[in-house]
């Protein structure tokens, strides 16, 4: 087969049962991978600035929770009723820990936690509270806004869908 024919065969293949089977296989694999394993996400909002920018594209790697338990500083996606809309937040405290914000500084069990990802000034104050069993405490990286306007808090570990791929 000449190279010209090969090229032609590649772009305009003959519709054979084998070819159709291959097309179905590829389509099915793509559907399963991009629906359940690597969910494409379009980031909307500025609560994770400057780590994740408004309007950027990423993928949610859903197999991550199967291999490792959630750890402090992990960025995770939290599902609502389904997977169409998810919240992108950072874990700052684990179950059983006591969390507090004092003059913008994060304190876990009374110890100040260094957060290099928080680049903007923050003056939050939040009285201490304990994270319930089976939950984690999540907050966005952008704390340069009034505490009332920022969506954060503790959520069930079961609500964690995965982590952003990059």
């Amino acid at each position, binding site marked *: 087969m000449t190279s010209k024919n090969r090229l032609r065969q590649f772009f305009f293949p003959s519709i054979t049962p084998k070819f159709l089977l291959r097309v179905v296989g590829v389509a099915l694999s793509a559907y399963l991978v991009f629906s359940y394993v690597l969910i494409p996400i379009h980031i*909307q*909002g500025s609560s994770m600035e400057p780590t994740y920018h408004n309007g950027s594209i990423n993928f949610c790697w859903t197999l991550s929770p199967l291999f490792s338990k959630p750890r402090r500083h992990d960025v995770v996606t*939290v599902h*609502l*009723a*389904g*997977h*169409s*809309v998810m*919240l992108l*937040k950072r874990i700052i405290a684990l179950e059983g820990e006591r969390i507090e914000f004092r003059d913008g500084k994060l304190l876990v069990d009374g110890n100040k936690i260094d957060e290099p990802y928080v680049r903007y000034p923050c003056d939050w104050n*939040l009285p201490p509270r304990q994270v319930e069993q089976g939950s984690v405490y*999540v907050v966005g990286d952008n704390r340069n806004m009034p505490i009332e306007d920022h*969506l*954060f*808090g*503790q*959520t069930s570990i079961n*609500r964690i869908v995965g982590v952003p791929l990059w």
Partner: protein
Amino acid sequence: MVKTVSQGQTRSSIQTPGQDNLSRPTSGQVGQRRRTPPRPSLSLLAAVKKHPVIAVLALILSVLAVFTLFPSEKKKVKKQFEALSRVVSKEPGENVFTTARKAKEIVPLFDENCELIMPADSVSGYFSRGEITSYAIRGRTQFSDLSLTFVDLSITFPDRGTAKVVLTAKLKGKGVNGDKVDETREVKSTLKKIERKWLFVAFEVVEVLKK
């Protein structure tokens, strides 16, 4: 003189001028007359075999017609949410007539009393249909444009006249003072089938992140 014979036509049936049409039937013709007409199913099968594309199209259209004319209960429940989304949403520069029409359309979507639970806003209790309507109207006036959409609807029917729905509600808009609003919440809703119509009887905003 006939030299060519058209398909399916025998020489005996070819008429020549002056020939009587009522010629004596042959034994074969008698047999044909006695035979019962072909059954409709067979002719339908023949038609399907002859025009398979048309048959498939007709089948698809029939299925679509059945689904459109006789919607499932799930679809009816979804339609209620679509109606709620439509009447709450507001286009920029909405005129008074549209506002009045939408206010009127909100009323029949709810039952006489509807339970609202919003823990983050410390709202919990039963509200009459009129109260909900007036809240909705008042709320709409705070926005120059507003869009309420429902996604990821998960509908279950715990009993015959009840539907439980878990969904994500997205409220996006611009306040009259120029402030942008972009809220997303998980909501649990209950609908009851009253007089063959699904009406909202409860809304609960789920606290996914508890401060």
